[in-house]
C-alpha cells in the first residue's frame, strides 16, 4: 500500500514540476507578432497574408520571407501609399509541408480582409494553396516557387496553359534554372559526366528533370540518377551507388537541410567532386551543414545577387535597420518585390473600393499589369503570371561563403 501512496505523490510532484516549468519558460518565449496596430477608425484595413515555413527545417528561408513582406508593408503604411487604407501582415506557418499549407490558405481565404498572399516557399505547397485562394479571387505572388507547372499547367513543355489566373511569381522557374545549371557545368566548367540526386519533392524532381534534359542535349552524360528521402540524414548507400560511375560533379535537386549533409558525406566517403544545386541550397545554412569540405560546391539562384544591385542596397539597409532576428535569406528581395507588386496593384484596385472583397477581382487585373523597378530588377508578369526577368546567377562556395561566379540573362536556344 505504501508503494501506491509514494507513487501518487511522485506523480503529483512530477506533474506540478512540469506545469511550473512550462509556465516559467512560457514567460521567456518570444511572441512572434508581426505588425498589428490599431487603426484610426476612418481608415479601412486590408491584409496581406504570408504562407511560408516559419518553423522546421526551412524556417531560415521562411522567416526571411515574412520579415521582407513586413518591411514592404510597413514602408507602404508609413508613406500612406494607399490613402484611406491601412495594410496588415498576417503570417501563417506551412512548415514547408502541404497539409499545413492548405490549412493556412483556408484560414486566409476565410478572412474577408485578406486581399493578397505572398508565398509559398515550396512548389508542392503552392499546388495545394492555389486552388484554395483562386475561387476567392485572392492574388498569390510567390517569391520562391520554381515549379513550371504552377503557371503553365502540367503539360508546360508541350501545351502551356495557365491553371489559375490569381497566381504570379517574382522568381524564374526550373524550366530555366535547371538548363542554366546544365549550361554552366558543360560549357563553362567543362564537365561531361554528372550524377543526379533528388529528394522526390516537386521542386527537386523538376529541377533534375530540366537539368538532365538540357545536359544530354548539350552532349553531356548523366552517369547515375538516384533519389533520397527528404527525412533521411544518412546517405552512404546512395553515395556508394553513385561513386563507381565516376561522375565529375553531382547535381542535386532539393533543399539545403539534405544537401549540406549530403555534400559533407560525399566528401568524407572520398567522392571529391563538387555538388551543384538550385536556389534551394543557396543559403548560408548550407555551408554550416556541409562543413569545411563545401568549398567549390555550386548553386544557381534566380536573379542577380541582391547585394550587387544598386536597387537592392536600399532594401538591405532598410532590412538591417529593422533589427529582425533572422536575415532576409535567399528570397528576401523576391518577397519584398512580391509584396510591393501587390501593393502597387492595390493602389489602383483599392482606391475607390468600399471593402476588400469587392476589390479582389480588380486586384488580379491590376497585378497582371504591374511594372516597376524592384530590388531584383524589373518586376512585371507575362501572360502566365511568370516574371519577365530571366536573369540567373551561379554561386560557388569559397572560404566558407557563397561567392558570385557569373550572372547571365538566360536565352532560349
Amino acid at each position: 500500500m505504501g508503494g501506491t501512496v509514494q507513487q501518487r505523490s511522485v506523480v503529483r510532484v512530477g506533474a506540478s514540476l512540469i506545469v511550473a516549468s512550462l509556465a516559467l519558460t512560457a514567460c521567456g518565449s518570444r511572441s512572434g507578432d508581426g505588425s498589428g496596430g490599431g487603426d484610426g477608425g476612418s481608415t479601412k484595413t486590408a491584409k496581406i497574408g504570408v504562407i511560408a515555413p516559419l518553423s522546421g527545417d526551412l524556417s531560415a528561408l521562411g522567416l526571411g520571407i515574412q520579415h521582407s513582406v513586413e518591411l514592404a508593408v510597413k514602408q507602404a503604411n508609413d508613406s500612406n501609399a494607399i490613402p484611406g487604407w491601412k495594410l496588415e501582415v498576417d503570417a501563417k506557418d506551412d512548415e514547408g509541408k502541404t497539409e499545413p499549407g492548405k490549412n493556412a490558405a483556408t484560414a486566409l481565404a476565410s478572412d474577408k480582409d485578406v486581399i493578397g498572399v505572398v508565398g509559398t516557399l515550396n512548389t508542392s505547397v503552392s499546388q495545394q494553396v492555389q486552388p484554395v485562394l483562386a475561387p476567392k479571387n485572392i492574388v498569390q505572388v510567390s517569391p520562391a516557387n520554381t515549379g513550371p507547372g504552377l503557371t503553365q499547367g502540367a503539360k508546360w513543355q508541350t501545351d502551356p496553359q495557365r491553371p489559375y489566373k490569381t497566381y504570379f511569381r517574382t522568381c524564374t522557374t526550373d524550366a530555366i534554372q535547371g538548363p542554366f545549371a546544365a549550361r554552366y557545368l558543360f560549357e563553362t566548367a567543362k564537365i561531361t559526366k554528372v550524377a543526379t540526386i533528388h529528394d522526390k519533392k516537386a521542386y527537386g524532381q523538376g529541377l533534375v528533370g530540366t537539368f538532365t534534359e538540357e545536359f544530354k542535349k548539350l552532349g553531356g552524360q548523366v552517369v547515375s540518377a538516384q533519389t533520397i528521402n527528404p527525412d533521411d540524414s544518412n546517405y552512404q548507400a546512395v553515395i556508394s551507388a553513385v561513386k563507381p560511375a565516376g561522375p565529375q560533379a553531382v547535381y542535386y535537386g532539393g533543399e539545403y537541410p539534405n544537401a549540406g549533409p549530403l555534400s559533407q558525406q560525399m566528401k568524407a566517403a572520398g567522392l571529391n567532386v563538387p555538388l551543384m544545386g538550385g536556389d534551394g541550397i543557396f543559403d548560408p545554412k548550407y555551408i554550416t551543414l556541409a562543413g569545411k569540405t563545401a568549398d567549390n560546391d555550386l548553386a544557381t539562384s534566380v536573379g542577380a545577387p541582391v547585394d550587387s544591385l544598386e536597387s537592392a542596397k536600399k532594401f538591405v539597409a532598410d532590412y538591417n535597420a529593422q533589427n529582425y532576428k533572422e536575415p532576409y535569406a535567399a528570397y528576401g528581395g523576391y518577397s519584398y518585390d512580391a509584396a510591393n507588386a501587390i501593393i502597387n496593384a492595390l493602389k489602383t484596385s483599392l482606391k475607390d473600393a468600399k471593402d476588400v472583397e469587392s476589390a479582389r477581382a480588380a486586384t488580379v487585373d491590376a497585378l497582371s499589369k504591374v511594372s516597376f523597378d524592384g530590388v531584383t530588377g524589373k518586376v512585371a508578369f507575362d501572360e502566365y503570371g511568370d516574371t519577365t526577368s530571366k536573369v540567373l546567377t551561379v554561386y560557388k562556395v569559397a572560404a566558407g561563403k557563397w561567392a558570385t561566379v557569373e550572372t547571365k540573362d538566360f536565352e532560349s536556344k
Partner: protein
Amino acid sequence: MDQFFQQLVNGLTLGSLYALIAVGYTVVYGIVQLINFAHGEVFMIGAFGALTTYLLFFDGQTGVWILPIMIVGAMIASVGTAVLMERVAYRPLRNAPRLAPLITAIGISVFLQEFIRLFYEEPAWTVVVFAGLAVFVGYLVGGAVAKTDLNHPVSKWYDRGPLLGAAGGAVALWIVARLVERDVTVVLGVGVVVVGALLGAAIGWLAGLAVRRNARVQVPVAAIVATAAAAALVAEVGWVLFKKLITSVEWPSAKLRIPFPQIDVVTGNALQVGGVTIQRSAIFTVAALVICAGLLWFFINRTRLGRGMQAVSQDPDTARLMGINVDRIIVVAFVLGAVLAAIAGVSQGLQNTNIEFRMGFLAGLKAFTAAVLGGIGNIYGAVVGGLVLGVVEAMATQYIPGQFGGSTWKDVWAFVILILVLVFRPQGLLGARVVDRA
C-alpha cells in the same frame, strides 16, 4: 565485387547503430515486458547531450580527447532522461494493463521531441531544472540527516512537510533574490546561501509546527537546517553555472538540423581498402558495438546485478522473494539501455555530421524492428537483428533495381522483414518460444 563489400560495410555500420539502440528495447522488455517507444528519444537526447557538452566546454576544438568527455555528457543526458522517464511515467503504471504504459511511452516520446525542439535554444529553462534539483537534493540530504524512513508505508505528506518546506523556502528566497539582482558576486552569493538556509530552516520549522498534530515522526531541527542549506547551496551553484557557463554559449536552434562537431581521428578522410571506402566514423561505430557487446556480456553473466537481471526477467515475483530489489533492477535495465543509446547517438552524430530533434523516431522504429527480428528480450538477438537489418537495407539499395529499388525503398524492406518474421517466426531469430508471454 567491390560494390558488394562496400554495401556490406555500409550495412554493418548502419546495423551496429541499430543494434546499439535495439539493446535498450530488449533489456527493458526482458525485465518488465514493456516496449519503451520513447527509447528512440533517449538516443536523440544522447546526441544532444554530446553536442551540449561540446558547446559548453570545447567549442571550436577538434582534439580526439574530447570524444570520451562528449560520450560521458551524452550518457548523463540519456541516463537522466531514461531514469526520470521510468520514475514519472512507467513506475506508477507498473500494475496497470499493458496498454497504459504503451500509450504513455508514445506520449513521452512526443513530449521529449517537442521539448528539445522548443527549448534547446532557450538556456533560461535550465534555471527551472536547477530549482527543481535544489529542492530534490535538499530533501535527500535532509532525509539522510533525519535518519527516519520517509518511504515507510505509513508515511504521509505531513512527515515530509518540514523538509519540503525548508528546501522550498530556501529556493523561494533564492528566486526572489535573483529576480531582484541577477549578477553574480561572491558576497551576494554567500549571502543568498546563508540567508536562504536560515529562512528555509525557519519555514521548515514552522511547517513542522503546523503539521505536528498529524505527523508520524518529528523531523529533528538539524535535518531541517541541513535541508535548507543544501537547497540554497545547490540553487546558488546552479545560478553561477548558468550565468558563467550556460549563457556564454550561443545555442543553435534545434528547429533546424544542427551540425555535429567534427573530431580528429574519428571523422575526416575515409580509409581506402582495395576498392572499398571505410569511413572513420564507421570504424568508431562498429568498434563501439563490439566493446559494448563484450562489456554487456560480462555485466550480465559475471556480476551480481546482471545475474539479478536474469533472475527478474525469468520470474519477477520469485526473484523478489529471494531478496532481489526488483525496482532497482528495472532502473538498471533502463540505465543500461540509455548508456548504449547515448553511444549510438554520438556515433550517428559523427556519421551523419548533423543531428535534429526528429532523428530518434525512425531510428527507434528500426531498432525496435531489429529487436523483434532477433527475438525481443534476447540481448544477443538484438545485436544480431540490428546487423541483419542494416545489411538488408544496404543490399536492397544496391541490388533491387528499377521501380522498387534504390534508397527510396530501403525503409519498406525493413518493415517487410518485420512482418515476415512476425508471421513465420514470431519468436525471432534467436528468441526461444515462450508459451506464457506474447
